[in-house]
């Protein structure tokens, strides 16, 4: 194609307005739920319960412009005259509209209620706070006295601890499989040994095996080895479940590296190990990065593996578990749920947006997988 040829984009017959319009619509639809969460996490508990998060947008609402306190001389059982309008208690309670569009409203009961004069005005509810985050991240503990007299200590929504646990699980569970898979990929690509083909067939066959198949037996092993609830146990599990894809991806990449680099290194007397560490690893950085992001997001966002292998130990709980637990126990505390959910997403979102290029590349390379 010469440079003079117009690209497809420019020659498109479809109206650009239609294209961009539909795209915008889909993007908005896609963003609304996440936006709702983000906005709500900064609203006060009271605001969340009384007005929708969309109240942050300008909207018309009844706003009190005057407040009266009817004295004891007002006859609450008959017809009253308040703020220039006449009516019975029931009428005032439902609100009486005045000629200028404002309304007079009785709030509270007959004896000690207030009367408010309200007008419809454009308002926004922009009363934001960081308190929700303070509550979610702070590790306050409560002592709860049990019926039998003993005291049970319960941690408040301690997302800081869970965040640390998630990091502790995710970093090694990303690096360990990469290291092991890179060695294996090099071995499969550049070494000749007995059973090479058979072993690689196993790798390919295991690509799509659902990890549920492994949970029951591995849990049995972990109970015997006392690995249940340990970081090591979770790392190994994530390593095992991530290895087929890692090995396969890295094998495809390393096999594609130019062979003559390797041969000249051999002639210079370098060992396999040296070649691997000095040559192959640096050359494979793009592939390693792609898989690293893939695996990191996977491990960070994993719920099932964490639930099964560390479920019993609250002090090693990861973010997804803490959040899921909160959905169950405090399902109506939206000020905590929203901020907690956002805490659990912030790191993967940063990783995702800053390293998207590598992530997409990994996805494209892995798309051969079923």
């Amino acid at each position, binding site marked *: *194609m010469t440079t003079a040829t117009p690209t497809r984009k420019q020659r*498109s017959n479809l109206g*650009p307005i239609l294209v*961009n319009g539909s*795209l*915008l619509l889909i*993007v908005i639809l896609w963003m609304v*739920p996440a936006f*709702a*969460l983000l906005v709500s996490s900064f609203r006060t508990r009271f605001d969340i*319960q009384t007005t*929708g998060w*969309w109240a942050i947008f300008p909207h018309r609402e009844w706003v009190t412009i005057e407040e009266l306190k009817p004295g004891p001389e007002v006859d609450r059982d008959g017809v009253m005259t308040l703020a220039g309008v006449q009516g019975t208690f029931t009428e005032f309670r439902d609100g009486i509209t005045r000629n200028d569009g404002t309304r007079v409203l009785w709030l509270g009961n007959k004896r000690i209620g207030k009367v408010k004069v309200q007008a419809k005005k454009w308002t926004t509810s922009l009363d934001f706070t960081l308190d929700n985050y303070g509550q979610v991240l702070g590790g306050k503990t409560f002592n709860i006295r049990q019926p039998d007299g003993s005291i049970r200590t319960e941690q408040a929504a301690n997302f800081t601890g869970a965040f640390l*646990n998630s990091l*502790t699980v995710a*970093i*090694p569970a990303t*690096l*360990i499989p990469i*290291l*092991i898979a890179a*060695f294996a990929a090099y*071995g499969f690509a550049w070494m000749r040994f007995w059973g*090479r083909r058979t072993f*690689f*067939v196993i790798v390919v*066959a*295991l690509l*799509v095996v*659902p*990890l549920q*198949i*492994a949970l*029951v*037996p591995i849990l049995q092993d972990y109970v015997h080895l006392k690995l249940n609830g340990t*970081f090591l146990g979770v790392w190994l599990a994530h*390593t*095992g*479940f991530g*290895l*087929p894809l890692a090995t396969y991806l890295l094998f495809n990449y390393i096999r594609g590296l130019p062979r003559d680099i390797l041969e000249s290194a051999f002639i210079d007397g370098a060992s396999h190990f040296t070649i691997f560490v000095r040559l192959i690893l640096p050359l494979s950085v793009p592939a390693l990065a792609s898989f690293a992001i893939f695996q990191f997001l996977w491990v960070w*966002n994993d*719920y099932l593996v964490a639930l099964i292998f560390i479920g019993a130990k609250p002090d090693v709980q990861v973010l997804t578990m803490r*959040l*899921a637990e909160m*959905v*169950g126990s405090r399902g109506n505390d939206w000020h905590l*749920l*929203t901020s*907690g*959910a956002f805490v*659990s*997403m912030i790191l993967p*979102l940063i*990783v995702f947006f800053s390293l998207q290029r590598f992530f997409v590349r990994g*996805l*494209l390379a892995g*798309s*051969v997988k*079923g």
Partner: protein
Amino acid sequence: MQQSSRRSGITATPVRLLTVIVIPLVTFLILYWGFFFLRDSSAPKEVTALTAIIWGVGGVAALYLVSNWLVEQLGDTWRARIQPFIFVGPAVLILLWYLALPSVRTFWISLHGRSGSEFVGLANYLAVFTNRNMFTAFRNNVLWILFGASSSVILGLLVAVLADRSRFERVAKSLIFMPMAISMVGAGVIWDMMYEVNPNIGLLNAIYTALTGNAPIAWKASAQLAPWNNLFLIVVMVWLQTGFAMVLFSAAIKGIPSEIVEAGRVDGATEIQVFFRIMIPYIMGTIITVSTTIVIFSLKIFDVVQVMTGGQFGTQVIATQFYREYFTNQNSGFGSDIAIVLLLTVVPVMIYNLRQFRDQEAF
């Protein structure tokens, strides 16, 4: 050739023999001590976390380093024989322990009763396919595939085509792709909020009550809507997976040679015809791969359902039933059975992958 013979034999000097024993021993002891420190210590969380990371990553690196160093002490022939297994051995062992053997072991457990001791043969399988809850779960997984997988694929394709013609391609794709970074638990919370009964919190009910004046509906937890309340959970998966489909389709569309598309246009094909007659056939391979991946994903769906409804209100799926039978009801035989059923559903894809692999020249 002569040079290499100098390396043969590890018994050259007693000192050397000693190092060969001492270094692995020290490595092993450090790792061993680290394991117990991490398992039993009550040090502050930050310390434990840092130790854990160094110990875990460093430990694996040390194992490779030391075992490779050991092998390098051997003679040439033996080194050539053993070294490959230092490289691929750990991966193969872990894969065997974590995935290959468990498939067999799970099958064995599935032939046994509740506690795993008495042999019941295929009775569990009979139960799985006659159990009413399991029937609902199977039906729901079919719904997930029918509606969830197809919507993700179609929407992904639509966005990819639209974005390809838009000036805002990068931003739009980035935003649609964003949910991929969010956990299914997080997505569950996000959509829980959308579906919340209180119309001051749930946008869907706010719109519904404002438009119809009816009382709000508990969308996902409504038994009246069943089985269509599943659709509200399925939306979450579509939200998460459309970006994935879009990225792959987008790359495939960019790979279509523009000459082909231009030729079609010159011959007077409309945009619609170009799309269905030229683009779709050209990217058929990608469509099949993406669809298969998303179908497998929807077969294994667990987190979304577990977090949003716990599998109640007729929303259970195969994976949540597995969890419930094995962990809540403590029925290991029945639970393993469900896992095997899950495995069987992906066997066709496995066979396809192996065929593809066999046809490759490289091996």
